[in-house]
């Protein structure tokens, strides 16, 4: 098992390397990269000192004359947390990230916890009560949840609760302290929007996976032992269903939450990573765009590793020899 984990870690490094290389290739072949050389000219035209502009250009990630030089600079820069200079903020990219992540975290984290608990619970209930009214209601909710375009849903909530009813603020304000009731109040709508899709998605997965086990022979055996329905549900339906569910947590839900967060920050003007990224794209601040795209990628890669390790704990049958 130790060898297996070591292998997974090695694979993680390899996957990271491949991902970054693909990223570099995409970047290097793009018209935006060609524009990089014009960057100095642009800055000079905007009244910057030529040396200063060139120095600033040196700060860019992946500069250099040959492709190989650019590649090595790019990789070394990423590895040493020297992620380049944000012209938009006039700050190193790393600092911009350090200042903004907390705004994303403050609502993504509660939404994640909420969606995992509610999604799994509803899904499990739905599976064990298949074809009941509650099941149909939950399924309808799930379909609605995964089909609602989150940006439109957010706007509709703003229209109802902010514009029409005036109960909640339309935009996020950074003037209030992070740990205040005011702040919690202005995060209600973002959390609702973000978790609705996640709950719906998790509920569907949890329901489908649990259904695989609802009619399993060992569930019948468990019932025949005299266990109560709750024991049967938790130990013999949910626990085995956990094994496949772990894989969707990282693969699908993480992506869903990040993508949702991006749009939500743009709509509510929450100055987190998503809004930073959005503005960086609008301003063509390539180093910042790259960083804000790579952060979710790194989180996903690490999440995958954690998921694999969880898998070995959850499923005794896993064959450590292969993969």
């Amino acid at each position: 098992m130790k060898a297996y984990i070591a292998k997974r870690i090695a694979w993680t490094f390899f996957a990271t390397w491949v991902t970054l290389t693909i990223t570099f290739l995409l970047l290097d072949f793009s018209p935006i990269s060609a524009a990089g050389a014009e960057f100095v000219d642009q800055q000079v035209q905007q009244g910057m000192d030529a040396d200063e502009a060139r120095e600033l250009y040196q700060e860019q990630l992946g500069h250099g004359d040959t492709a190989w030089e650019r590649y090595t600079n790019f990789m070394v820069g990423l590895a040493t947390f020297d992620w380049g200079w944000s012209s938009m903020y006039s700050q190193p990219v790393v600092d911009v990230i350090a200042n903004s992540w907390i705004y994303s975290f403050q609502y993504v984290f509660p939404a994640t916890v909420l969606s995992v608990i509610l999604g799994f619970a509803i899904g499990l209930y739905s599976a064990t009560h298949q074809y009941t009214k509650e099941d149909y209601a939950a399924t309808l909710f799930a379909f609605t949840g995964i089909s609602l375009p989150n940006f439109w849903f957010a706007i509709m909530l703003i229209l109802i609760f902010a514009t029409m009813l005036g109960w909640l603020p339309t935009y996020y304000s950074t003037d209030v302290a992070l740990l205040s009731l005011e702040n919690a109040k202005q995060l209600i709508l973002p959390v609702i929007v973000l978790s609705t899709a996640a709950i719906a998605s998790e509920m569907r997965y949890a329901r489908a996976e649990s259904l695989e086990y609802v009619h399993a022979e060992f569930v019948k055996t468990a019932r025949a032992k005299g266990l109560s329905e709750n024991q049967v549900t938790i130990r013999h339906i949910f626990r085995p269903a956990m094994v496949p569910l772990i894989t969707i947590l990282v693969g699908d839900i993480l992506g869903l939450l990040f993508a949702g967060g991006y749009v939500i920050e743009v709509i509510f003007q929450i100055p987190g990573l998503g809004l930073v990224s959005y503005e960086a794209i609008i301003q063509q601040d390539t180093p910042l765009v790259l960083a804000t795209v790579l952060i979710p990628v790194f989180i996903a890669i690490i999440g995958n590793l954690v998921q694999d390790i969880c898998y070995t704990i959850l499923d005794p049958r896993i064959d450590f020899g292969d993969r």
Partner: protein
Amino acid sequence: MTMTDDPLLSIRNLQTYFHTDDGVVKAVDGVSFDVDRGETVCIVGESGSGKSVTSESITQLIPIPPGEIVGGEVYFDGEDVTELSTGELQELRGGRIGHVFQNPQGALNPVYTVGYQIREAIDAHHDLSKAEARQRAIRLLEDVGIPEAATRIDDYPHEFSGGMKQRVVIAIALACEPDLLIADEPTTALDVTIEAQILDLLRDLQDEYDMSIVFITHDLGVVAEIADRVVVMYAGKVMETGSVEDIFENSAHPYTEALLECLPGQSNLEPIPGTLPSATDPPDGCRFHDRCEYATEECRVGDQPALSEIEDGHGVSCVHWQRGSDGLPEPTDVRGPVRSTGGER
């Protein structure tokens, strides 16, 4: 508990229906039989005869819904089980009634050790310390013939062979020394040599634990091997019931006879023509009439004939049950090209 002459289990006119998209499936439609203390009763029938549903209706293990026990009583030790609360039922399951299922591959949860799964059965009914429960689990594994039980108890199901898994499932069923063991085709998925081992084991355990066994099977060979009494089922109804000698040496129902005649390995094989009647819309009269070579007009009307007692303990549900004495009706030829009615899927 005091020993009485009452049967341990007495099923009276049990009706279990399933509500499906295609209509109501009358899987078990008025089944009655008794199981005495210490005896083995085999329920034998082909697939679709309702034998498994019967056994799972005893402690209501059938999925409800779509299943529903529509009528009848199940007396266990004098008490009507169909009237029990959920809690009392759970007390009964695994406590006084143990279950063994057909497919040992699926009957054990792959993510727990076998020790955990046995202890779970013990803990559901007894208040033992962890060490005590473990010791009891090891003894159970030894009882069911698993070598080096103390080492194997911490293994996961996938580390056991099919036969060994079935032994573990039996150990779970025996965890609380039940009075009744319900074994639903416990050897069907196993090879013959392993099947023989399991049948031996069940016989030994029956003496050791002093229990009654309800054994469900489609294999008359197994019935001959293990049964004291036999219930022959067809399309949700009991066709014949009697001692194992009654059934094998003195069978009175045409269906039983036909079943015996189509056992491979004997010199003259006689297939039963036709297919099982529709479960949602069973025919009038005797359910077997359109495949029966003795069927007459009387067989095609009314309900399934009541079980008539030929002799003590030997009942048969046939219009012509007295045919031994007053002469058989002429066998009619029901053979012909097999109609592809496509009823079953």
